[in-house]
């Protein structure tokens, strides 16, 4: 099982700040495709980025259940 931390508007769209996926996922690219398919409103965001172990990660980065994985919508700090 893969646990996702979900923030900001993505949390509202996905219905929670902690989401557990039972799907078999091996890369950031696969995860993003799955999320965009399951939560189509995510497509309306300017961007959707995945952080793996607290680093922004590109699609080819591999992910495992032991990684800390976060769903990062457009940031707006400051």
């Amino acid at each position, binding site marked *: 099982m893969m646990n996702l*931390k979900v*923030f*900001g*508007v993505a949390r*509202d769209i996905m219905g929670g700040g902690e989401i557990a996926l039972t799907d078999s996922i091996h890369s950031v690219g696969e995860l993003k495709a799955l999320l965009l398919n399951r939560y189509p409103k995510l497509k309306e*965001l*300017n*961007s959707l*980025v995945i*952080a*793996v172990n*607290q*680093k*922004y*990660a*590109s699609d*080819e*980065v*591999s992910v495992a259940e032991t990684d800390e994985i*976060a769903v*990062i*919508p*457009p*940031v*707006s*700090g*400051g």
Partner: protein
Amino acid sequence: MIKITAKPIDVQKVIDTASSLGAGAVNVFIGTVRDSVHNKHVRWLEYEAYESMAVAEIRMIIDEAAHRWQLQGWAVSHRVGTLKPGEVAVVVAVAAVHRKESFEACQFIIDAIKAKVPIWKKEVFEGGEAWVSANPPLVIHSN
């Protein structure tokens, strides 16, 4: 000092933390909550952070600035939670030998914080609310 805090920020304390006897110039940026945005009255803002990653990202930004402008001192504090108009959301303070460096470094840091750091704000108006969609995070690491 890098701090993500739910308590009101003590601006003077952030400045004191950045100050240094070797510095002739301290530049401070204070981001505050405006009472109106796009002609709508703001009731409050809600800030949230991916705290551990936010601290790590701010540290990377500071490291780059400290090296590039030979900073003598620095401090960053970012508020989370519910903020009313007039409250301080973020303070960046940097100390440098000369003033030009202090301005450049401070602006670099706040620009990078707004562009890259996983912090989000929602504006709550009379009769509505909206997540602010300022920036996609700019830097993508691959492994």
